[in-house]
């Protein structure tokens, strides 16, 4: 232990604790811009500086570990020198920033703006001098990069290069000319970016943002010729409440449905229904591969970021990918075939909107072989954040809305479906149905498979079902995927079924979710908190296995036939191809 003083008050802290962490543990939040725990401790932004007895200059508290040599030292966290330094740092950052705050995507949720407010820095010209001007990179389908708002904190670079081990963005050039960009300044769309959006949720400012597709939704809603339907992914209800002042991990399914109805959607569906269909198809596919000598291990295909990763970085595993479309696409496909027929609507007149925790879904809707009715299964994919914008624009007082239920049949879902949004959820849902089948369709087959739950990046488990031992693995985050697939490739691990999600912790921590500032990221496990919301919904559901869903049974009986039928294959399955984008 080291005995130190913070602002004159004595504390005893563990050796190796950084000044910032020591302060935080004792009730003082040191402001930061560049620091992201575990992935970006580079001491670059100089916002977290503090004064310390015996130090020649101010100290960057995020990268200063306390040791026995610091015994007895006094740390000042808000002395005039500290506050003046932080203020000047902000002024210098602003001297090369476009300060386009009014309609910026992050206004009100911008860490730079918040700090300026706290430290009393306004938009006066503090320093005259050169200013960089950058073109906005609009090339990618899911996001844009506006370097005029970039503060070079490098958090996005860490998210891409370390969390995901991809590294298609980095710092180019030097000094004042430094910018975050791709190799040879190529547009993002020409690189093997997988569209996961982890860089967006890491960005403190509006430099990185999803492409806003809400105008398309508003236009569809205002068009009397169109039938506009919407589906919401499981993880959306686990994060949406954060934008309206609910504690993290509060499920807001009922109010979300009420909001969508009030926005004017003609039918409110639930991606959970698509997830239940996915389980029917995927568990069938898995058992078919096991019994008929198909390619194993089979790997899940729900996460479009993971699919893009596989196609670009591990094309040798394409035969291992489940041919199942993602729940979003299955829901869209059934909407425009089964539901359209049932309601007597021409699928061309249906506008199918999805609300997703994910930016890669914007890419997925335009993929080949995703048009069951000859028109795209899903027309517009918006993120959780864009739904927040729509709710606010419409003046809906979210907290005052009643809890309502989505429409049937495509708006229902089992407990198995809702946990798709957390890492391990797809595996658990698949096991619920696969084990039921393997045990002779025994209604008492197990529901909970706790070994595959939790936020660890790589989890493995083994289940004995009859004479079969099923070895499964659950992986989230692409750095973990790379590590694990390399082991599979080298024959170091053996398994039959792998769930892979591009984002660490799964969709609850997706690139399209409500953005939490670094201060929350650094001290809260967002993945675990949001996952709690989904497991509580699973627990509360009376139907917890996909094959027990009455609506799913009805769709199979009246329309699809059996899981894995020719028709199911036509509508609910897809294909993949290796991509050759720049890595």
């Amino acid at each position, binding site marked *: 232990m080291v005995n130190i003083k913070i602002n004159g008050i004595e504390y005893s802290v563990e050796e190796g604790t950084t000044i910032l962490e020591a302060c935080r543990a004792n009730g003082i939040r040191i402001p930061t811009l560049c620091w992201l725990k575990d992935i970006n401790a580079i001491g670059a932004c100089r916002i977290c500086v503090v004064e310390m007895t015996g130090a020649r200059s101010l100290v960057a508290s995020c990268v200063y570990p306390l040791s026995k040599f610091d015994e007895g030292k006094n740390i000042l966290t808000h002395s005039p020198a500290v506050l003046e330094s932080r203020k000047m740092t902000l002024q210098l950052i602003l001297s090369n920033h476009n300060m386009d705050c009014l309609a910026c995507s992050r206004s009100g949720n911008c860490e730079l703006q918040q700090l300026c407010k706290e430290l009393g820095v306004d938009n006066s010209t503090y320093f005259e001098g050169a200013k960089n001007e950058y073109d906005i990179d609009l090339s990618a389908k899911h996001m844009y990069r506006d370097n005029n708002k970039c503060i070079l904190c490098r958090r996005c670079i860490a998210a891409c290069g370390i969390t995901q081990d991809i590294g298609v963005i980095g710092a180019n050039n030097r000094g004042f*000319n430094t910018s975050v960009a791709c190799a040879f300044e190529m547009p993002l769309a020409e690189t093997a970016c997988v569209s996961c959006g982890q860089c967006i949720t890491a960005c403190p400012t509006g430099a990185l943002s999803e492409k806003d597709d809400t105008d398309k939704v508003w236009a569809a809603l205002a068009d009397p010729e169109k039938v506009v339907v919407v589906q919401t992914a499981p993880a959306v209800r686990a994060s949406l409440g954060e934008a309206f002042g609910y504690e993290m991990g509060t499920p807001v399914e009922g109010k979300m449905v009420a909001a969508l109805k009030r926005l004017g959607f003609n039918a409110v569906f639930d991606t959970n229904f698509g997830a239940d269909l996915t389980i029917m198809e995927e568990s069938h596919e898995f058992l078919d591969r096991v019994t008929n000598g198909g390619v194993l291990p089979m790997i899940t295909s729900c996460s479009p970021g993971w699919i893009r990763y596989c196609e670009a970085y591990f094309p040798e595993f394409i035969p291992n990918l489940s041919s199942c479309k993602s729940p979003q696409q299955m829901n869209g496909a059934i909407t425009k075939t089964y539901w359209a027929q049932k309601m007597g609507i021409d699928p061309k007149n249906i506008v199918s909107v999805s609300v997703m925790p994910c930016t890669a879904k914007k890419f997925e809707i335009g993929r080949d072989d995703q048009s069951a009715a000859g028109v795209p299964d899903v027309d517009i994919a918006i993120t959780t954040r864009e739904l927040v914008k729509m709710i606010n624009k419409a003046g809906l007082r979210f907290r005052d809305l009643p809890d309502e239920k989505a429409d049937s049949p495509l708006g229902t879902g089992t407990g198995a479906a809702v946990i798709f949004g957390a890492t391990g959820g797809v595996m658990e849902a698949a096991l619920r149905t696969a084990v039921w089948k393997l045990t002779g369709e025994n209604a008492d087959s197990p529901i909970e498979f706790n070994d595959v739950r939790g936020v660890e990046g790589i989890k493995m488990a083994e289940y004995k079902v009859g004479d079969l031992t099923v070895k499964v693995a659950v992986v989230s985050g692409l750095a973990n995927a790379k590590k694990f697939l390399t082991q599979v490739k080298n024959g170091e691990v053996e398994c039959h079924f792998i769930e892979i999600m591009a984002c660490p912790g799964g969709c609850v921590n997706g690139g399209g979710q409500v953005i939490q500032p670094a201060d929350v990221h650094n001290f809260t496990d967002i993945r675990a908190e949001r996952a709690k919301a989904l497991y509580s919904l699973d627990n509360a559901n009376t139907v917890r296995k996909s094959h027990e869903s009455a609506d799913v049974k009805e769709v199979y009986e009246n329309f699809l036939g059996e899981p894995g039928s020719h028709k199911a294959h036509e509508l609910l399955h897809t294909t993949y191809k290796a991509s050759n984008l720049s890595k």
Partner: protein
Amino acid sequence: MGSTEKKSVPFNGTAEQEKALREVIAAHKDQQGALMPILQQAQDIYGYLPIEVQTIIAEETGIPLEKIYGVVTFYAQFSLFPKGKYKISVCLGTACYVKGSGDLYNKLKEKLSLEDGECTPDGKFSLEACRCIGACGLAPVLTINDDVYGKLTVKDLDDVLAKYAD
């Protein structure tokens, strides 16, 4: 910024050069901090580090291309462009600069449509600024390969370039 519209000179790498590059990579691949020596030797082999060369390094080492490009654009010792048949260096040291070498440099950029470090698409002229070459008595000075030209004015530039018409 700024480097998006660079002149492109067709890549003329030979099989021997590629073989040499792959040997260099193989020799360093598993060392920590291998990228700098690989880049330095790659530049010795090719004279510069175009996308074709950086891509081979990325594929062989598993280092993302962007990371390599970031290092190449960080250090002044690395060039993304080949040197021309005639390499023009304009001294921007203090003495030359006060005598107007900045004007010479800007005029050459305009005449040859080049930015610093670039090469004309026909591979003939490359242009770069350099620091003091110790010929301050002749300021302002520029060199073309091993020829030194001093006491120049902007008006002299056409005559100087005309000597390299071939």
